[in-house]
């Protein structure tokens, strides 16, 4: 009797799991594996290969690794992730978190203002910043730098990569701030008091206590922000579509352009495979390294 009850319960759990698994399988897991098999074909949307695609082995990858545009895209992606997620968002988020934990006034207001960009849809982010970066002397950023005596610039043409890094930093400060605030406030206060009694300076306390105690949060932040930044598409697509001259062509945009602008699905899939492998490696590294509790 007990056994059948247990057994029935287990079957119910499996049954309850099914719809979610099915949906994820059809739209995420299966396509991810399918990308691998597509990358071994010369599948295309136009031309001969569109009618009948054939197995071409690893030739897409041979072409890929010899393609300067692919290496450019990889480099741009790396700089984009490091510039915005690892440096920009983290530093500004950390600074905001530290400052907002001090006894100051208008705390809620500052908090709300810093959080606002995080809620904005990707497409609107692009739209807002195209206006900020508008060229000519009336462009908002041009008017700001004019106070410092800088001549009007065509930001999205002269500094395209920096421009998208600044936009993505803008968008992600809040996420870093919220996560790091919770990390900072979970450090027990008595450790600080004990250190003060022992005569530690502010700097020592920061480097010897705050930073080490905050490390798990910092790693969690780095993991989440790296994988999300790696997956960005809409924000850059609306701002620059990868241009000018491929200077902002992050991997997502490169895949899209190869697949739906150049119509080379097989080749696009091989770029997708690289992108999948990289993010899976980051994921496995994180799960193994930090023993994610499940």
């Amino acid at each position, binding site marked *: 009797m007990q056994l059948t009850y247990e057994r029935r319960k287990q079957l119910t759990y499996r049954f309850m*799991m099914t719809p979610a698994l099915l949906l994820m399988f059809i739209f995420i897991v299966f396509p991810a594996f399918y990308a691998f098999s597509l990358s071994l074909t010369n599948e295309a949307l136009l031309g001969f290969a569109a009618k009948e695609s054939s197995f071409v082995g690893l030739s897409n990858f041979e072409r890929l690794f010899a393609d300067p545009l692919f290496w450019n895209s990889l480099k741009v992606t790396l700089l984009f992730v490091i510039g915005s997620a690892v440096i920009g968002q983290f530093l500004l988020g950390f*600074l*905001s978190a530290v400052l907002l934990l001090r006894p*100051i006034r208008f705390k809620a207001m500052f908090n709300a203002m810093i959080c*606002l*960009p995080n809620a904005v*849809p990707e497409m609107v982010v692009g739209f807002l910043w195209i206006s900020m970066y508008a060229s000519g002397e009336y462009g908002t950023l041009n008017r700001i730098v004019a106070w410092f005596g800088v001549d009007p610039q065509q930001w999205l043409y002269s500094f395209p990569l920096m421009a998208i890094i600044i936009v993505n930093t803008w968008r992600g400060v809040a996420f870093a701030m919220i996560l790091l605030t919770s990390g900072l406030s979970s450090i027990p206060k008595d450790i600080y008091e004990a250190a003060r009694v022992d005569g530690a300076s502010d700097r020592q306390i920061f480097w010897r206590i705050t930073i080490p105690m905050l490390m798990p*949060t910092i790693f969690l932040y780095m993991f989440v922000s790296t994988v999300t930044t790696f997956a960005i598409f809409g924000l850059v697509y609306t701002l620059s579509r990868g241009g000018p001259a491929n200077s902002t062509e992050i*991997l997502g945009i490169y895949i899209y352009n190869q697949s739906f602008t150049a119509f080379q699905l097989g080749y696009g899939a091989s770029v997708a495979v690289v992108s999948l492998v990289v993010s899976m490696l980051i994921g496995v590294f994180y799960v193994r390294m930090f023993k994610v509790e499940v």
Partner: protein
Amino acid sequence: MSIASNAITTNGTSQKMTKSQFKTYLTLILISLYCMVPFIWVVLASVDPKASQFLKIPESVSMDHYWNLFANQSGLRWILNSIVINVSATIIALVFAGFGGYAISRTKAWWKLPLLYAIILVRIVPPPALIVPVYKVMLTLNDWVNALINAVFTDVATQQTMSRAFSFVDGYLGLILILAAMQLPLAIWIMKTFFDAIPIDYEESAAIDGATQWQTVRKVLIPLAMPGFAAAGLFAFINAWGDFLMPLMFTSSPELQTLPLGLFRAFLRVDAIDYGFLTALAVIYTLPAVIAFSFARKFLTQTFSGGVKG
């Protein structure tokens, strides 16, 4: 910190305090300005009859752009499409994640751990990497669905209506399902964490007291898991609402366009950009996400700290 600093009087110390406070405020004001300037433009331009790409104080204020939005057929259509598609996707994700999160929280079967790790990995799959295979999957499903529709309905008008609703490419159902699928990993994870926090004793004692399974679910589980549903639903909605890639790939007909795509395509018409219309639309599009985010904020840390062991 030499003798000089020891010699500072009370007055000196307080001045130093003000200086550090001043620096704190100045830094926060600068960061806030960085965050706020783009919003100042979009809000001012949306109420400025002479809206332009440039930030300026309007000479007069009117809500005309907003009224036009609702009078303008396409604006209203995009808003309604966005609401229908994203709310449906959120509901599907919530229901499936509710069941899935409960099962994975309660089961002790061998598949529990592998599945949890798999969900983490599924969550970090970058959507742009899936565009080609997903496109082919959607095309196949689309063929099946349309073959089915044509087999069941003979009337051409009905066929077209059904096809619009249930197609996977350029139809509602496909977009809804794929957006729901994309939100599932995080939603399941959130639900699982919340169900973990509800002791199984509650359910068992309800059962002992003679409650039916359905009563236990409705009167015990759902009320207790409400914060979980709120968190999962809010994040699913925010992510689906802001998604640009899926509508970009799977909608082409104008009747089906949602806000992100409508906004994007209207903006591409370089010859005649109506900044008043666009900024008002951008404000309307952003508002639900901001409201949802303000509620979701307090859950943010809980959901991302998939529990880090030091």
